[in-house]
Structure formats: structure tokens, C-alpha cells
């Protein structure tokens, strides 16, 4: 196994379209790193550059200690799982899995042993003589993964491998790939646009936007301490609420004034807010940090806000309330047992201890 290093990598497409800009990252040996971001953010291109399917415009990529910029894909000792599986339709499952080994002129019994071993790990031994057409989506995905693991490569690359599966199967395969990582102890780079996949699978997550890295961190660090508004909004479902307003200072405390309501900010925010009295600010709070008044014993009145309920979405274990103050709209995640009338006013409590503040100009996180 090996580490993968991106050193100031930039990729330009014809017409000087910047796909990836000054990308630097060290993926440690045996680490599972997830590249996540919206469509067109450069995550797939970054992965494909490691595979050798895209040329690097500038910068360096190392696999292990070897600079691989000019090494052909077949000599990079990597394996890749594609979004649409890319199984060869005219070959049986066995031949699909054995193809790479056969081209590398492995002895027949070694090929047989490796393919059987991989098939057992993935539970597809009974499918060996079928063609891809006769497999379900989940089975195809398993074969695609099997084709990668028989090669025992230094690095596994996954390009949105679960996107074509239905929601239930996606959750199942997510867990299986994580198990596989634990079992193989291999370096894996995984691309997805699904933040839930990223959060549940990655040792570390790289959030990308417009070809640039926004933040590299562990899932919880990313969730609790997003570096900027984009990361804060991208990670979490439903996404973080952003409310525009101003900082106010009164009686030695800092407040956030939205225009229709004012709430006291947490004590630990004060040092950052010094000198910002009257300054515009973006207040960020996750839906789970807004509760109905009934759910909170002894609420601080300075953290309570009255809002009108616009939509109620019960999802089973909890309910999402879409609320509006007239100036801004936000979502609260409340207990499923609570009932709310649409267009009725409700008092909700903001857990400001967990809130975030962002500079409205730079979008960078202040807290």
C-alpha cells in the first residue's frame, strides 16, 4: 500500500477552463479519503489525475515515493471503480475480474485463486458465469469492486460508485465498502457528491468547490468546525441555516440582531466580536440546534424567537419545521411528537452555544 501526494496540482481543460486549482493533499497509507463537492467542483478530475486518465497541467502527483505525472495508467498500480461500473458486457463475471491479471500475464492458477478469493469476500461466487446484463445493480457494483481488489493495487480509486444504486442499496454498499477498507487496509480515494456518503465513510473528507479545496478534516471536525460558509452549508442534512443580521453590543454582551428578533450570543464568541459592534454578520445554526419551546426546560428568554410555521415535514424520528420571521426563513429539527399548525406562530429556542458566525464578505468562519 502507499500514500498519495498531490503537490500544487492544477488542471486546465481546453479554453483555459480551470478544473482543479493548486490542489495539495497528502493521503496517508491505508487512509480512506473522500473528495466531496457539488457537480463540476473538480473532484472527479482530481481522482482521474491519480489514475492517469487526465494529464496534470502543472504540479506533481506521487504514489508512494514515485512521481507518476508521466507514468501510464497501467503502470501506476492503481485500480478504479467507475460510476456506471464499466464492466465489459461481452465477458462473464469471472473474465471481467480476471481481465487485468490476464493482461499482466499472471499464471492461470494464481488468477483463479485471486478471483475466487475476491468473489468470496464480496459474496458473488455463484455469479461467476453470468454476463453483466444478467446482474442487478448491486451485483454489478460488487463485480466492479471485485475487479479492483483482485489486482491488489497500492491505491483504490472510487468515482461515485454508488450513484446509480437505489437509496436502500446505497446504504448497504456504503457499509460494505467501509468493511472492505477495514479488511484490506488499503489506501482509498473516494469521490462522491453525497455528503452523507462522505461523512459515513471517510477517515478524512476533502470538501471542494470550483476546483479548489475548501477544507480537509475528519467528518466530525468538518461538521462542528466548518472553515467557511460553503462547507457549513454543504455538510449536514438539512443544511445549516444562514441568517443575515448585525452584531450589537449592550450591557457588556454581544447580540445578533436580525431585524425582527434579537438573541444573545454565546460567551465564547465575545473575543472574536470585539470591535465589531454594528458590523453585518451571517449567523449560522444547524436545524438540530433549534428546538421548540416545549422541548427545552428552563429556556433562556434571550435565545427565544417567535416565527410563523410555513411547512411541516414529519420524517418519522423527527419533524422538520420550515419557519419564517418575515425577513428570513430557516429550518428547525424538532421532536416527531410535536404538532404545529401551518401559518401559526411558534416560539423556538436557538442553542447559540453551537452556532457559527461568518464574515458576510469573505464567507470565512469567525467562530
Amino acid at each position, binding site marked *: 500500500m502507499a500514500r498519495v501526494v498531490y503537490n500544487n496540482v492544477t488542471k486546465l481543460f481546453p479554453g483555459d477552463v480551470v478544473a482543479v486549482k493548486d490542489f495539495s493533499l497528502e493521503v496517508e497509507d491505508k487512509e480512506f479519503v473522500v473528495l466531496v463537492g457539488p457537480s463540476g467542483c473538480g473532484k472527479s478530475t482530481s481522482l482521474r489525475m491519480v489514475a492517469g*486518465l487526465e494529464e496534470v497541467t502543472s504540479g506533481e502527483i506521487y504514489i508512494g515515493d514515485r512521481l507518476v505525472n508521466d507514468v501510464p495508467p*497501467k503502470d501506476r498500480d492503481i485500480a478504479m471503480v*467507475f460510476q456506471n461500473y464499466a464492466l465489459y*458486457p461481452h465477458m462473464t463475471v469471472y473474465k471481467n475480474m480476471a481481465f487485468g491479471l490476464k493482461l499482466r500475464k499472471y499464471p492461470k492458477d494464481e488468477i483463479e485463486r485471486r478471483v475466487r478469493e475476491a468473489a468470496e469476500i464480496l459474496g458473488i461466487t455463484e455469479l461467476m458465469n453470468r454476463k453483466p446484463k444478467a446482474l442487478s445493480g448491486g451485483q454489478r457494483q460488487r463485480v466492479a469492486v471485485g475487479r479492483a481488489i483482485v489486482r491488489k493495487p497500492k491505491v483504490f480509486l472510487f468515482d461515485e460508485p454508488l450513484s446509480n444504486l437505489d437509496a436502500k442499496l446505497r446504504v448497504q454498499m456504503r457499509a460494505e465498502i467501509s468493511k472492505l477498507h477495514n479488511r484490506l487496509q488499503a489506501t482509498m480515494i473516494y469521490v462522491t457528491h453525497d455528503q452523507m456518503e462522505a461523512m459515513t465513510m471517510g477517515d478524512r473528507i476533502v470538501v471542494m468547490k470550483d476546483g479548489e479545496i475548501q477544507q480537509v478534516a475528519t467528518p466530525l471536525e468538518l461538521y462542528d468546525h466548518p472553515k467557511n460558509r460553503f462547507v457549513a452549508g454543504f455538510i449536514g442534512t438539512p443544511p445549516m441555516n444562514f441568517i443575515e443580521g448585525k452584531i450589537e453590543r449592550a450591557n457588556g454582551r454581544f447580540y445578533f440582531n436580525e431585524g425582527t428578533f434579537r438573541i444573545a450570543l454565546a460567551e465564547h464568541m465575545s473575543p472574536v466580536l470585539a470591535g465589531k459592534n454594528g458590523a453585518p454578520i451571517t449567523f449560522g445554526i444547524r436545524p438540530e440546534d433549534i428546538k421548540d419551546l416545549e422541548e427545552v426546560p428552563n429556556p433562556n428568554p434571550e435565545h427565544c424567537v417567535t416565527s410563523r410555521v410555513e411547512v411541516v415535514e414529519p420524517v418519522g424520528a423527527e419533524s422538520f419545521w420550515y419557519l419564517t420571521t418575515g425577513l428570513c426563513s430557516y429550518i428547525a429539527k424538532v421532536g416527531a411528537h410535536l404538532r404545529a399548525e401551518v401559518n401559526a406562530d411558534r416560539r423556538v429556542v436557538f442553542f447559540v452555544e453551537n452556532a457559527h458566525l461568518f464574515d458576510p464578505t469573505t464567507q470565512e468562519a469567525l467562530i
Partner: protein
Amino acid sequence: MSETSASRPFQFSLPALGLYAFLIAVSAAMFFPLIWMTYSSFKATSYEIMLNPWGLPKDWDLSRIAAQYAYTWTKGNIGTYVWNSVAVTFATLIIVLVCSSMAAYAFSRLWFPGRDTIFTIFLIGLIIPTEAFLIPLFLEFRELNLLDTRWCLILAYSGTALPLSIYILRAFMVNLPRDLDESAIIDGCTSWGVFGRIIVPLITPALATVGIFTALGAWNEFLLALIFIESESLKTLPLGLLAFYGYHKVEYHYLLCGLTITTIPMIAIYLIFQRQIVEGLTAGALKE
């Protein structure tokens, strides 16, 4: 999908009946000339055909019919013509399948300067009629000393078949996901490997379609053969059958025997490859 349509029972309704009647009528119109040609070739004399062109033969004596076919084969020198037609058609087929599949691969999967312009030039070949390049081609072959050889037919037939073949194969290849190529490259294939091990096996239906079009064209071609070939020993079947057209009389019964012999190989090829041909023609029409 095919299972569903095959197992669907016929539901009796007036529109369905009308549709089937229409399809039967069209099929009959298509098949009748072939059937007419075959049973008329069984007639004993040219007179019998002229006197009663639509009627069935009076005499169904199999040994007489066999003798009539054998006579056509030997007197008409059909053996030589068949051999020439087979040689020319086979060589044309090989050249067209190899060149058009490689060209289509390049036009659909590789990037090189002027790619689209060159492809457009090939497409222009689709709209140029044979008559327009007959004389230049004749002069060119004369310069190259290729006139009255099998090569002039092979080259001319290959050249005329390439535009349509490239067009069909390229359209087919464009629909194959690029991930397949990339996956094969990571597995260790070169560009040749991707072409030979992945792309070619996947375009078999399209190759069958191109193959039958090309073979039919080369097998039936008359005009170029008439202009380029003089030697009796090099004549192809359509040209050779001219022997039955006398100045004063036409020996229709022998001519029809010859035409039936000419038609059989093409029908056999079509029947063998019909499944692939239909797949090739309808590929991409439905989502996989």
C-alpha cells in the same frame, strides 16, 4: 424485452387485423419476385416462361430440373463467375470491415487535429453516385495497370462501401460508454488492446450489418465490373449472366437458373446473421 414481446399473445382487434393484413401484403410484395424467379427457373423452356409468365411449371420432374441447373452451371461457366464473385466479395469485405472499424474507432474515441473534417470528407462519399467517378476511376486504374484485374473491383467496391460503413460503425461506437475504454486502459490495455479486446467484440451486430451491406453491394455490382473487366476468366456473376442474353433471343430459363444460383449465397448469409443485423440496425434505439 424480447421475451416479453415474443410471449405476448395476439389480441384480436380490427386495427391489429388491419396491421397484420398490411404487413402480410408488404411481405408478399417483397417475396414474390424471389419466389417467381425460383419457380420460373424450373420451367423447361424459354417459351413456357414467355407464354405463361405467372403460371407454375407444367413439369416438376426433379431430375430434369437438376439437369437444367447443371447445364446452366457448366454452359454458363458459372463456377468461374462464382469463384470470382466470392474472391472479390470476400476481399472487399475484409478490407471494409478492418478499415471502417479502425477508422470509426479513431473518429469516435481518439482526438487528432482535423478529425471532424476528415470524417465529413468521408460522409461526402455517401452522396456521390458511382456514375460520377466512373471515368476518373477508369483512367486511374489504367494508369496503375489495374484494369481487368480483380484488384480494380476490390478497391472500387471497398472505396464505395467505406463511407456508409464508417458512418454506421462510428454511430454505434459513440454510444459505447467511455468508461469501458478507461477501465481497460487501467487494466493494462493499449489503444490497440482496447480496440481489439473491448470495442470490436461489442460492435459485432454493427459489423454484421456493415458486412451484409458490403457483401450485397459487391456481390450484385454490375456497372463497374462491366467497365473494368474484359477477361472471361475474371468476370463476376452479374456480368457472367449476360451470356444468356443473346442478340436474337434470351434463354430465360437458364438465365433464371443463374439468377437463382446467384441469390442463394446472399440469402443464406442474411439468414445466418439476421439476428445480429437487426440488433445492429436498432442499436441505441432503446435504453439498455
